[in-house]
């Protein structure tokens, strides 16, 4: 199936996406994250390309509860290596104390990428087989790519 039109039709029909932007990938519900990856994998998107998370701090007085408390936004990209190498990207929003379903059971390549996002941004992946830090030392506290993390936080006795 993998064409941009069919990807769009799938999201509109099965995942309730109605807003489309030229600049941003479609936003789906966090509970549909794993199901969408499963459907796409069946339809030929078998290569896990990336997951990128970024922290959005809470906005005071926002109507949306998620926006008021702050959340983490993830973009996941899958590629179809056989069918003209189409790329499918979608976004999800996860609360700071919520968990997101892991994709390691579908794509083995998601293992270290999800560990990296947990390490630096602090996304909790539910069902991850090896949820350790990837880059920073194991005794590290906090997640340095969050907006509220002071960049020059000391780490005795080394810095």
């Amino acid at each position, binding site marked *: 199936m993998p064409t941009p039109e069919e990807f769009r039709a799938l999201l509109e029909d099965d995942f309730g996406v109605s807003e489309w932007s030229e600049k941003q990938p479609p936003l789906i519900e966090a509970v549909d994250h794993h199901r969408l990856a499963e459907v796409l994998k069946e339809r030929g998107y078998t290569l896990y390309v990336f997951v990128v998370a970024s922290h959005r701090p809470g906005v005071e007085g926002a109507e949306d509860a998620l926006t008021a408390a702050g959340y983490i936004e993830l973009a996941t990209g899958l590629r179809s290596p056989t069918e003209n190498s189409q790329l499918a990207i979608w976004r999800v929003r996860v609360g700071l104390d919520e968990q997101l379903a892991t994709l390691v059971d579908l794509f083995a390549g998601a293992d270290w990428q999800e560990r990296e996002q947990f390490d630096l941004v602090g996304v909790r992946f539910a069902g991850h087989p090896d949820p350790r830090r990837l880059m920073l*030392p194991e*005794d590290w506290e906090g997640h340095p790519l969050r907006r509220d993390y002071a*960049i020059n936080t*000391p*780490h*005795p*006795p*080394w*810095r």
Partner: protein
Amino acid sequence: MAVDESDRNYEHPLYSMPGLSVAATSVDKLLTWGATNSLWVFAMATSCCGIELMATAASRVDADRMGTIIRGTPRQCDVMVVAGTITVKMAPRVLKLWEQMPEPKWCIAMGSCAISGDFYRDIYSVIPGIDTAIPVDVYIPGCPPNPEQLMAGLIRLQEKVRAVRGGEWAPKDERPETEAMQKTAPSIPRLLSAERSPDVTLAQLLGAGNLGLGGALNRAADAPPLAAPQETSDAITTQAPTETSEGAVESPSEDEHADA
């Protein structure tokens, strides 16, 4: 810190015998010649300075012509060239490798990252210069320094080794320090600076999983004793779980180093 030197004997028995001092001096000169011309380098290369370090060993500059050979294991080396940015995760490994090198050993901080952390110095994961963890003999500024500068640094180290072995006092290498660097002084004081607490050195050695010689070296005379020997071994075993969880990733590479 005052060190009690009254019980030290500097008079070697060989020097009291007539004629032997001449022979000993000659042998010592030969040994100095050998030591200065066989500075084997352990390349602690973590980033782009490592490329220049490789270029120094290549044919244009050819560090081999003065016996400076790059070796892959710290146990065969005299000089550690720290070439590149050292992160918080890497620093215990660097210190561990440094402790594995046999005495006498020297350290060259190559490039601005190894000297001060350079523009990464305020970042959460980068240590502000390797001289907060291991003592540096020669600083080579540059970003990265070219092979000729590293060669000049090696020659300066040779002069220093020659002076120390000849019984002269070798002045401490001046650390290049700009105004901007003084404004952002590191939170961990550098080795040999007055503000540095010996507990920092001890914590670093514990973090590196190594309670070698270095643990006792920087202690002030009036500092309380570290721990009784029994307690010290207990401390090491209680440290073990955290170290093994961290060391599980690094142990294969350590074994490689030992086997090489």
